[in-house]
């Protein structure tokens, strides 16, 4: 078991900090939520089906991709198995994201940790990760509730916006007309820069970028994120070891997180 001193906080102020930090990004998410609700209605999904997906699956990319496959007119009816398998493949990147947060999540008791993970999206993951890295740099005690707060913010905006899109919105311009498609690229770019990569981080980043570019052309869905991440990890693992300058980031499973 973890010693009490190994555990990190899981507090309401931490939850609120995560919620507030995620607000600007959640507004961008809501634009796509409206789009999802609208497209779902056009595809013939009922409000109950649309909203169940947002409440229980809660994964924007896989929900939008599922609409492509959703068809009740096929000979076998709804393609249940391929919808579930596609969802799994689109979401496999979450495995690495959860693993990357494990240095902090292993210092929570398992209820809050595994509960918070239900709400982990690309956006709330990235914000939480950069917050935890910053906490470490500033020698600030981390708060494990940040991930849940950021996730709940995305959850609230996603669910409200998909319902709105299904019920009320009868037409929506292409978000790219307003540059809104680029909001996510900008956020993730800023968070990458905010990690303050050092020289020995460059090779993995270049490997990830090159692999993601190639895979985005060749493979469907979100494979490029998973393959790019693995390529970056392999470049770090197989490349030259970094010089022994102290790195403030703990590795997953380092001593503080051990029983």
């Amino acid at each position, binding site marked *: 078991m973890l010693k009490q001193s190994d555990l990190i906080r899981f507090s309401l102020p931490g939850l609120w900090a995560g919620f507030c930090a995620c607000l600007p990004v959640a507004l961008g998410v809501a634009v796509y939520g409206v789009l999802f609700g609208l497209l779902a209605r056009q595809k013939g999904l009922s409000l109950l*089906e649309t909203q169940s997906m947002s409440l229980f699956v809660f994964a924007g990319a896989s929900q939008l991709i599922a609409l492509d496959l959703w068809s009740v007119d096929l000979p076998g009816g709804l393609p249940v198995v391929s919808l*579930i398998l596609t969802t799994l493949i689109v*979401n496999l990147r979450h495995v690495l994201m959860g693993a*990357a947060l494990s240095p902090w999540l292993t210092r929570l008791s398992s209820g809050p940790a595994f509960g918070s993970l*239900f709400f982990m999206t690309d956006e709330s993951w990235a*914000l939480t990760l950069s917050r935890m890295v910053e906490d470490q740099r500033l020698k600030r005690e981390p708060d494990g509730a940040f991930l849940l707060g950021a996730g709940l913010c995305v959850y609230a905006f996603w669910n409200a916006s998909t319902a709105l899109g299904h019920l009320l919105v009868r037409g929506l311009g292409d978000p790219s007309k307003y540059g809104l498609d680029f909001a996510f690229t*900008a956020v993730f770019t800023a968070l990458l820069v905010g990690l303050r990569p050092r020289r020995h981080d460059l090779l993995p980043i270049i490997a990830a970028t090159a692999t993601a570019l190639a895979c985005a052309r060749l493979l469907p869905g979100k494979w490029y994120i998973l393959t790019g991440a693995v390529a970056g*990890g392999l470049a770090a693992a197989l490349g030259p070891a970094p010089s022994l300058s102290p790195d403030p980031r703990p*590795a997953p499973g380092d001593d503080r997180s051990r029983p």
Partner: protein
Amino acid sequence: MNAAAFLSSALPSILTIGGMALVTYLSRAAGLAVMSRLSVSGRLERFMKAIPAAILASIVAPSALAAGPAEALATLATGLVAWRVNNLPLAMAVGVAVVLGLRLALA
């Protein structure tokens, strides 16, 4: 329509959405479940330390570098702002404004 008829007509949707929810949660929980049972050192430690930046770079790569000159320049502008000031909404607003302006200018 009675409850049984509703359930049987809704069964494919229920199975699909339930299955999607299950595999999505498993993907979110698997990373922690595995890492909390592993002791990480050596090459695996270097692999895991590189993952955050590698995921972020992979997410942005296609939309930043393969979408056109407006997107590439806007990514550069966003990166510079983020390097100078630690303000995420500002970096996001600059990125959107620059891409919008350049798309109009280059169109």
